[in-house]
């Protein structure tokens, strides 16, 4: 037996058909057990009150950011386990770790969880953690709405995740094309779960989009004109504007499918002249901007990380901003490249193929500008920078294969094949995931006050990146060998075996990387390396002028911004004392008061959604009334603020050594 066969054999021994492999239900049981354990802990330690006051009702963007981060990491684990199950099933021909039905459920959840419940919240975590601080604001524009967004997202995620134990899981793929997703072919409640969880989470996402758009436009510190704004704030602004117009078409696509399924409408059914392709059209009007929603924040993060760890100003700031704008603008006009095969005719295909290719231009400008930023710098190989350095050579491959996909007749051969799977993991993992991980390591000290152990983090990085290449490069070739996506298994003799085997091994390497990352976090928490300076990386933007973590009110004194990279300039010009306050100039500070309304509102949404999923309409109505009640309560209670008095501010700042004497 060759080594390869031997390993395959071993894995098959470890996981006999449909027995041992952690079933999705198993994951749910694990999550439930974990939740119960946490609850027991809270009860024993009498921490419920603390949890409620400090976290569940908080409207502080910093805490909301942390909650987003935790949720995103849990979902990364969940989507990652799905990925491992996919890859294990595909390790060799005719493998039967799962049945076809289960396989369909697994890839559907994998895609849905990763896109909507891992990548999006990860991005929002970093927006929340960093954007208000770097623009010199005390909070986002609508703090309570921010909490509503989070809780709505969280309950949406729960909704999708419980489907596996309660009622049945969706299995029509992450884009859930009709008529397959219609009642005639998909009679269970799984598809309802899919539709409602995305619908609910989508509402929260739109609210976040509005919130950050207004925050960036209206809450900047005096003096920080748009042209002095950090690029990450720019990327938050532009991502938000994409959210605003990408999500409504999704809402419509999902909503109409729901009307078909629950109320007998005829939008995308086969009978009564329904038109399934209209769903596809609407879905991708959303779907394409969505992938840029995922990548723009990563671009923003890299534009912060590169200058800091090259000790050099960003090259071509204006071009960086301009290219973000250009990408977002173009991304509204390319969606047909996901269905060139629908027969819309050469005119349509050529138009959308060329518009797709155009995106390579602004993206290329960004790639080169990062390289030029490093040129003539002094590159420090810290963990955030390592992720950035891995990103460049990786993303350029994924982007370039994207351009190959955009060449219409060529796409006739790539579409729905593993070539396409390879493309998008290449950009999503190599772009978005590398990006948000870079950002996580970068802002971690600011969020938590302690640093992650760099050596462990480097090992995690090495495994993950090596695993990435081993996993996804073979998939390009699988595509050229005619392997299509979503195959529950495949026969031998088509030449797919060894490439698939390597791909599977790669995913195990990524898993090792992820486990080290988790270990890294736990270990570093137990042996904290406190960040006492507030500026562990020798940063350039305003968040590093604050202590880590920042006090509740962020800035005791709002800075007056004079230049781009203001904190860097302060350090160069010896103005760092500007951030200190003097005892006689302290003002009381207003901060928004905690509110139970957001979590109640989201819970009402959840109840209503469960009612819809099972067609228990009394429950749906109950949930709807709950939503109205929560909104009314919020409206009548009026928005309330808490005033932190000057003495308290002074004491807090003094404790951090930030008072001028």
């Amino acid at each position, binding site marked *: 037996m060759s080594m390869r066969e031997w390993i395959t054999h071993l894995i098959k021994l470890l996981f006999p058909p449909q027995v041992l492999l952690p079933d999705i239900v198993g994951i749910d049981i694990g999550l439930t057990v974990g939740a119960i354990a946490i609850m027991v802990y809270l009860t024993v330690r009498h921490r419920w009150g603390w949890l409620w006051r400090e976290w569940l009702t908080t409207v502080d963007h910093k805490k909301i950011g942390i909650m987003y981060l935790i949720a995103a990491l849990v979902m990364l684990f969940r989507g990652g386990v799905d990925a491992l199950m996919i890859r294990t099933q595909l390790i060799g021909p005719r493998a039967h770790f799962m049945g076809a039905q289960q396989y369909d459920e697994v890839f559907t959840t994998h895609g849905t969880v990763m896109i909507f419940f891992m990548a999006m919240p990860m991005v929002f975590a970093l927006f929340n953690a960093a954007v208000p601080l770097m623009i010199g604001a005390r909070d986002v*524009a*609508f703090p309570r*709405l921010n909490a509503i967004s989070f809780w709505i997202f969280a309950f949406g995620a729960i909704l999708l995740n419980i489907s596996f134990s309660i009622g049945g899981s969706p299995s029509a793929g992450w884009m859930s094309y009709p008529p397959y997703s219609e009642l005639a072919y998909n009679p269970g409640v799984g598809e309802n779960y899919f539709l409602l969880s995305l619908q609910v989470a989508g509402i929260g996402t*739109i609210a976040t*989009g*509005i*919130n950050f*758009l*207004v925050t960036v*436009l*209206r*809450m900047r510190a005096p003096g920080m004109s748009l042209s002095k704004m950090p690029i990450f704030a720019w990327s938050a602004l532009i991502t938000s504007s994409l959210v*605003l*117009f990408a*999500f*409504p*078409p999704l*809402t*419509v*696509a999902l909503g*109409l499918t729901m*009307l*078909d399924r629950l109320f*007998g*409408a*005829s*939008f995308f059914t086969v*009978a*009564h*002249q*329904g*038109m399934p392709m*209209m769903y596809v059209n*609407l879905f991708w*009007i959303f779907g394409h901007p969505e992938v840029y929603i995922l990548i723009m924040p990563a671009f923003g993060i890299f534009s912060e990380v590169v200058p800091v760890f090259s000790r050099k100003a960003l090259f071509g700031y204006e071009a960086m901003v301009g290219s973000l704008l250009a990408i977002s603008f173009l991304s509204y006009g390319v969606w047909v490249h996901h269905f060139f095969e629908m027969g819309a005719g050469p005119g349509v295909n050529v138009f959308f193929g060329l518009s797709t290719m155009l995106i390579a231009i602004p993206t290329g400008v960004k790639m080169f500008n990062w390289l030029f930023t490093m040129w003539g710098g002094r590159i420090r190989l810290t963990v955030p920078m390592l992720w950035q350095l891995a990103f460049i050579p990786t993303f350029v491959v994924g982007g370039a294969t994207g351009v190959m996909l955009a060449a219409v007749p060529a796409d006739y051969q790539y579409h729905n094949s593993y070539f396409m799977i390879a493309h998008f993991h290449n950009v999503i993992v190599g772009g978005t995931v590398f990006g948000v991980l870079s950002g996580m390591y970068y802002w971690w000290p600011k969020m938590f006050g302690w640093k992650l152990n760099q050596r462990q983090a480097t090992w995690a990085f090495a495994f993950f990146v090596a695993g990435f290449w081993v996993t996804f490069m073979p998939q390009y070739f699988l595509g050229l060998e005619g392997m299509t996506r979503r195959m529950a298994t495949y026969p031998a003799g088509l030449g797919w075996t060894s490439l698939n085997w390597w791909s599977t091994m790669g995913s195990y390497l990524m898993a090792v990387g992820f486990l080290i990352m988790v270990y890294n976090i736990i270990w570093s928490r137990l042996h904290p390396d406190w960040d006492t300076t507030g500026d562990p990386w020798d940063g350039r933007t305003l968040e590093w002028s604050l202590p880590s973590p920042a006090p509740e009110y962020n800035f005791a004194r709002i800075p007056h911004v004079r230049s781009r990279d203001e904190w860097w300039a302060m350090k160069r010009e010896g103005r760092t004392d500007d951030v200190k306050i003097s005892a006689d100039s302290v003002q009381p500070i207003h901060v928004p008061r905690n509110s139970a309304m957001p979590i109640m509102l989201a819970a009402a949404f959840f109840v209503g959604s469960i009612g819809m999923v099972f067609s228990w309409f009394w429950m749906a109505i109950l949930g709807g009334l709950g939503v*109205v009640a929560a909104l*009314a309560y919020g*409206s*009548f209670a*009026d*928005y309330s603020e808490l005033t932190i008095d000057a003495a308290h501010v002074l004491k807090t700042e003094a404790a951090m050594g930030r008072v001028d004497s």
Partner: protein
Amino acid sequence: MSTTTADRPPEFQDMHESIRIMGFWIFLSTDVGLFSSLFAVYAVFRSRVALGPTPHQLFAMGPVLTETLILLTSSFTCSLSLYSARMNRLRGAVAWLIVTLLLGASFVTLEIREFVADVTAGHGWSHSAFLSGFFTLVGTHGSHVTIGIVWAVMLALQLAMKGLTVTNRRKLYTFALYWHFLDIVWIFLFSVVYLSGMA
């Protein structure tokens, strides 16, 4: 705590409130996206009538005209409510608001009656893609109006309870934006759906 400039509408004098108004505008623009998608669906499905009625057979001029006139008038009374508030006439503001919501309610009632008539005539939305698109587009607008009515009721109560506070002025202002926006959607509805269908 904000600077007050005398010649600025009261809704904007408080920085928080002015930011909220901007947020509301942004929300309205996402609603533009929502309705555009529904209009796109309707436009594509318009001729897909299967065995059901065509637009020409389904629509009648009378009821649409009535509904339109009612809604336009409510838009006008809504603007009078805001006008009164700016003149610091609380009574007027509340009164015009109530007139607005009554007009809105009669609009919704008429619309529901139309729908019920269609359905009892055997033209339920499951009979063709066109009917599905029609009911959903018009119904989405109608449910927006309904939400607006609930909102107006709460707003009237708050005005009565707390008077013309800065916050209430802002709420009235955003409500007015919402209401006029629905009017704009209706303008496109009767033009694209009804009038083009009857032409």
